Structures are given as structure tokens and as C-alpha cells.
């Protein structure tokens, strides 16, 4: 499969609205093949998932533009990229058929399906489940299958939305290994993470988001040594940005600060 590389691509003042609210605001950023692994972090509701989906091409920007390097029509996701969603949806089929369907959709020739699918299942340690219904796998195995399905089509660009959320440490470690392996094989990784330790381990470059904006973007070692943005600093110090909200809620309800999802505009 020779697919045009989706890299680099550029967001220029991109914005996205959902439910009458601007949830991504004025995003200007370029993504290239290097550094290999970009990790997006930020509190819940910051817009990390939406940014990944926007870059993937799942929906158009409501304002601003995204420019891709090649001149092909990128209104829909291209075959040179793949995405693993925060909550992956596996088909109601066997494990291997899940991979084969991805290969089929991506346009691989029928003669290649079996071998490629078996190969990627071996790499992800799922060979012995090949014939098992995908949805009867454990959580961690399902996550690995989702990753296998994405890797099978040999993307040049891979989006991963919290690929280890709700996995136990062992399962998370396996997924991290697979991510490292893919990156070493030349796949550009753009992922989100809720786990700062994981970000430290994996990231070459870190993007910090807050309320729909990119607040800081820096090489990972520099970012963790001394973030420039005060919100980013508070975030990596584990303050989770509650202090901002505490100032809003304190007058109304002394305990309001502990409400996670309550994300009011300051």
C-alpha cells in the first residue's frame, strides 16, 4: 500500500464548537514526523480528544483551517493514518476478523489479509485469541486488539486517545511497549494521556491544553523540568487546576472545588 504521507499538517486558527460552546479555540500548530511521539495532556474536558479527532479528520473545523502537505482531499481520514479511540469499538466478530476488516477497508489485497493479520496479532501477543469473539476479551486485551487493528494498516501517523486509561499496570506496560515499538518503526504518534508518569516515559514532545486552547508546547524534558505556563506548572504539580475553580465556588459552596467535571469558564 502506497499512501501519501499525511505529514506534516498545519492547524491555523482552528476552532470547534459543540453544543453552542467553543470547545477548541484558535489552535495553531504544526505536526511533523519528528519528534516521533507527541503527548497531549491537560485536565478533563480540556479538548484533548476533540483535538485528536479534528487532526484525524473525523470532522471539519468550524473556524480556521487545517492544511495537509499533500494536495489530496483530506476531508475524511486517509488510509495513511489510524486512530484508537478513548473507548475503542470492536466489531462483533472474532479477534482476527476485526483486523482483517480493517485491512479490507484500507484496501489491502485479499491475499495479504491472513498473513498480515496473523503477524500483527503475534506482535501484540493476541495470537492465541485469533478465533475468540473480540468482545469477550479482557479490557487490556481489547485495548491491545484496538491497537493491533490500527497498526495492521501500516499507518504513518497514529492517533491514540488515552490508550491505557483504565488498564492495570501490567496491561498498560504492554501497550506502552507497543507504542514505543511502533514509533521506533517510523510511525508518528500523537496521543493523549491522563497519566503524567506515562507522559514522562513516552513523550518526546508535550502539549498542554486547557479549556480548548494549547497553553504550552515544548520538548518533554524541558516541559517537565520547568513549564513556562503557570497552569501547566500547577497541573504537573498535581494541583489539577482546582485552585481556579475554588475561587469561583468558595462563595457558594465550600466543597464545590472537589467537583471534577464542573468546568466553567473563568
Amino acid at each position, binding site marked *: 500500500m502506497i499512501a501519501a504521507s499525511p505529514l506534516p499538517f498545519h492547524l491555523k486558527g482552528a476552532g470547534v464548537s459543540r453544543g453552542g460552546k467553543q470547545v477548541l479555540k484558535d489552535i495553531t500548530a504544526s505536526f511533523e514526523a519528528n519528534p516521533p511521539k507527541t503527548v497531549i495532556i491537560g485536565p478533563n474536558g480540556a479538548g484533548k480528544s476533540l483535538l485528536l*479527532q479534528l487532526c484525524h479528520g473525523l470532522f471539519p473545523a468550524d473556524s480556521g483551517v487545517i492544511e495537509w502537505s499533500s494536495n489530496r482531499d483530506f476531508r*475524511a*481520514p*486517509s488510509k495513511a493514518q489510524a486512530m484508537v479511540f478513548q473507548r*475503542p*469499538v470492536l466489531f*462483533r*466478530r472474532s479477534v482476527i476478523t476485526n483486523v482483517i476488516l480493517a485491512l479490507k*477497508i484500507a484496501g489491502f489485497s485479499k491475499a495479504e489479509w491472513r498473513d498480515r493479520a496473523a503477524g500483527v496479532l503475534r506482535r501484540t501477543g493476541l495470537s492465541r485469541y485469533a478465533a475468540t469473539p473480540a468482545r469477550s476479551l479482557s479490557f487490556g486485551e481489547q485495548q491491545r486488539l484496538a491497537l493491533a487493528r490500527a497498526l495492521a*494498516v501500516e499507518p504513518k501517523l497514529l492517533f491514540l486517545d488515552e490508550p491505557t486509561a483504565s488498564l492495570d499496570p501490567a496491561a498498560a506496560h504492554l501497550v506502552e511497549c507497543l507504542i514505543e515499538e511502533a514509533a521506533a518503526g517510523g510511525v508518528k504518534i500523537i496521543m493523549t494521556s491522563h497519566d503524567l508518569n506515562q507522559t514522562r516515559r513516552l513523550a518526546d514532545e508535550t502539549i498542554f491544553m486547557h479549556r480548548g486552547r494549547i497553553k504550552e508546547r515544548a520538548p518533554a524534558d524541558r516541559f517537565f523540568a520547568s513549564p513556562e505556563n503557570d497552569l501547566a506548572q500547577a497541573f504537573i504539580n498535581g494541583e489539577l487546576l482546582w485552585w481556579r475553580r475554588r475561587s469561583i465556588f468558595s462563595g457558594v459552596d465550600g466543597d464545590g472545588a472537589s467537583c471534577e467535571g464542573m468546568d466553567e469558564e473563568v
Partner: protein
Amino acid sequence: MDVIWQAVLAALSMLLTLDERLMEVILLSLEVSLTALLIASLIGLPIAACLALTRFPGRKTILVLFNAMMGLPPVVVGLVVYLLLSRSGPFGVFNLLFTPTAMIIAQVVLVTPIIVSLSRESLETMRHEYHDTLRSMGAAPAQAISILVWDGRFTLATAHLAGFGRAVAEVGAVMIVGGNIDHMTRVMTTAIALEASKGDLVVALGLGIVLVALSLAVNVLVYGLRSMGEARAAS
């Protein structure tokens, strides 16, 4: 009470000996209702797919209409089809009234809304779940539809069983457009109505037992399919 027990025993023996009179009626019933189901499926599934997977103005109205049509009274459907097929009706030239074909037409009208509504619901649920994944993979519309239909096969089969159940058990429509003519258009339900009114309990009960067994079998199948679907979907 004795009379009834004797009738039940006689009916069972008629069934066990594959009584010719009974078999003729049963086979015609199955033939008419299964043909109606097949045609309703060929009409209904594309409509259901269209309603589930596309958005256009007036779609909601069509959904409500099909939902309402699921409850159409069979006699009324029979009456309308009768008028359309009668000598003075627009399709009178085809001479279809009081033939099995007329009965099939009436049952297609009864079954199609069930296939459309239930399949649409199933496909829409599937689409909602699969949409982003299929789009991310770059699935063409035809690929997407075939995946949705296959992965939704258990609920789609359930929709078809519900349609068959309605067709094979209804009496109003086939009575009016078929006329309950012996050896021609007599099916289980119309035969039961006739024999009961004549006081011949044996045949009526024999057919009644078959109908109940059929509906039981349909429900067992529905249950089986549902649990198979759930086992597949379990995560």
C-alpha cells in the same frame, strides 16, 4: 369437558398422522406468509437502511408513519387491498382477488412496516456505535452498510421473526382478500374461524395447536437469537 378432551386427542392424532386436509392448509399458510416475509424483507431492509444511515427532511415523519403502520388493523388492510384488486379497482385487470397472491400482497402490507421499523432501530443503534470507527478506517458507504447488517444480524433476524409471527397469525386480511376457498385460499387462521363456527372443533383445535406451536417456536428463536447476540456483544 369430555367433548373438548376428545377433540384435543383427535386433533393430535390428525397431526401425528399428517392428515392430508390439515397439511394442505398448513403448507399454504407457510407458503403465503413466508413469501410475504421474503418480499417484505426485500422492500423493508433497503428502506430501513436508508432511514437509519441517512438524514433528509421528512425522515422523522416517515419514521412515525412506519411505526404507526405496525399497528394497522389487518381487516382494514384486507379491505383496502380488496378494493384495489376488485374488478372495479385499479388492479382489477390482473384478476388477483381470491388467490394466494392477493393474500401475499395483503400480508406484505402488514409485515413491511414491522421489518422497516425494527430493522431501522437496530441499524441505527449499530451505526451510532460504529460510526466513528468506520469513518476513521475510511469505510466506503457500501462497506459500512454490509458491516452494520452483518454485525446486527441477530436483531435483524428478530425483526423478521416478529414480521412472520404477525403474518401467520392474522386472520382479517387473508379472509377478506383470499375468501377462505377450500383447496385454494384456505389457511390456518381462516380455517379455524370457519371450522369453529361450523362446530367442528377437531380441525379447529388441530390447527390451533400448530399455530401456537409455531408462535412458541418463533419466540424461542427470538430468545435464542437475542442471547446469542448479547453473548457476541458482551464486553
